[in-house]
């Protein structure tokens, strides 16, 4: 099986603090994969390592077999890695449409495109059409800072999607959404996956994880504690302990004793 993305013995320290320790996992092409774990487990850090915001302290990160650690962060979206952010990072002073058009940059960054007006361009039409498909066409000209949270969350996904990535990484896409919105999001992500896009999703909503993802990697304190089918993740003793803290608490008492 060919892995689209693979991490091999990846570690990340901030000063003396080990945030990711020796983590390895593969994201198979076409997978709908979840990356889960308790707060502070290191999920967002993994995204930051893959997208190049941080450099790994050790280990290798490969996209289709190619080591990407030396590739500048801005070039990675062109290689097919796009992401959304846990705390929405849309450009507050840009309109919805402009935010989406920014997501096209990796495909539209040559000098000719840079210096031609966006109005009436094919890029603008493409962004408008995508927003319409997503039911977000009520707001194209609106500055995003003024829009409701759920809408902005969706726009971030659209901005990542318009880069036509191979791997779409979403950091807690359902956070702050109600049940209906979450159900819509799930359908939407299933549609995206059906077009051949590989998903890597960080999510705390376990029912969304179960219904959306076929595979899960679980992190706890920066270490991988589970890597397998989503259906069995909640039966795994290590995972249960990580979330409920039973053995961890027990271990502490034995350590003290």
């Amino acid at each position: 099986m060919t892995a689209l993305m693979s991490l091999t013995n990846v570690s990340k320290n901030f000063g003396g603090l080990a945030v990711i320790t020796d983590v390895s996992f593969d994201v198979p092409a076409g997978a709908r994969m979840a990356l889960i774990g308790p707060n502070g487990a290191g999920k967002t850090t993994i995204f930051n390592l893959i997208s190049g915001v941080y450099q790994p302290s050790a280990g290798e990160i490969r996209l289709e077999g190619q080591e990407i650690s030396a590739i500048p962060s801005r070039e990675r979206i062109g290689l097919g890695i796009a992401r959304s952010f846990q705390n929405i990072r849309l450009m507050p002073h840009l309109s919805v449409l402009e935010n989406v058009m920014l997501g096209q940059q990796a495909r539209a960054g040559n000098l000719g495109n840079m210096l031609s007006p966006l109005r009436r361009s094919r890029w603008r039409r493409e962004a408008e059409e995508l927003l319409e498909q997503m039911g977000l066409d009520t707001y194209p000209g609106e500055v995003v800072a003024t829009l409701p949270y759920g809408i902005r969350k969706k726009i971030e996904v659209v901005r990542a999607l318009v880069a036509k990535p191979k791997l779409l990484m979403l950091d807690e896409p359902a956070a702050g959404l109600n049940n209906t919105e979450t159900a819509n999001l799930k359908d939407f992500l299933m549609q995206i996956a059906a077009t051949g896009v590989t998903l890597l999703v960080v999510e705390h909503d376990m029912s969304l994880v179960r219904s959306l993802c076929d595979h899960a990697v679980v992190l706890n304190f920066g270490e991988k504690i589970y890597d397998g089918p989503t259906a069995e993740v909640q039966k795994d003793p290590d995972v249960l302990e990580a979330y409920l803290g039973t053995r961890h608490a027990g271990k502490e008492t034995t350590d003290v004793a």
Partner: protein
Amino acid sequence: MSGYWAGILTILAINIIFAYGIFLPVATGQLNLGGAGFQAIGAYGAAFLSASFGLPVPVTIGVGMAIAGITGFVIAFPLLRTRGVYLVLATFAFAEVVGGLILNSDTFGGAMGLSVPAFIDWHVPVTAAVVVTLFVFYLMSTRFGLTMRAAHDDEVVTDLMGVNVRSIQVAAFAIGGALAGLAGGLYAHSFNFVEIQSFNALVSIYVLLYVLLGGTQTAWGPLAGATFFTMLPEALRTVLPALKSGIYSLAGVEGAVPAPDDSWRFVILGALTIAMMVFRPEGLITRTMIERFGFHRSRAGKGAPA
């Protein structure tokens, strides 16, 4: 046209071009407090070429503008490594260095200044201002303009979207330097005299204020800011004496009223500046405001937000 209005229009045109020169870097998130330095380079470049070689005006202004642009390009690399208040100080220091070099140079007349033989009348700067305004509006409507504004909002995410943020910022800084240089060249030929004292720190501060108070989100901002702050002192020149004699007559003071001291105009300017910062911290003209004018009608037909 009367000499008074020709003078006002000339100053207004030069200030608008100058403001666009500072707007470009500011729109990418880089505060430039070195405006006077770029303007001085353009002014002295044009003045020197005109006085020493008698070159035609388009050449003198063009070369001055190019030197200012190239200077902007070259210093952008070290300068844009600094951030926030350090960048402000670094650009300010740049202008001081330019001023100091000119002041100590015999070639450029030192403290005596240079007289500029070739004269241009008001419609040259006004035409230049129209062209520059159209150019900046065009630039802001392109993907280049989009990436400039994106870099202003969030450099990290702009980079992750595939934008070479550093290149965009350097380009904006250099083009801005060239525009400030153009303003300087036009100044030199409009007033036939340059002296380094007229490119002082206050000039850098004022032009940055035009931009910040006019608004940095759209190309309308610097136009509004430069126009407002250039015209306001002129308006006050006539309004203030009237106001003073009004107050005097209300208070029952008889006889001729002496004209108010000129410094009152700057007191009012300062007070207005503070008021603008309090009430419109994002500038006079904002995206949302343009949106209100432009999009409401087309949106009105559509259904409620889903």
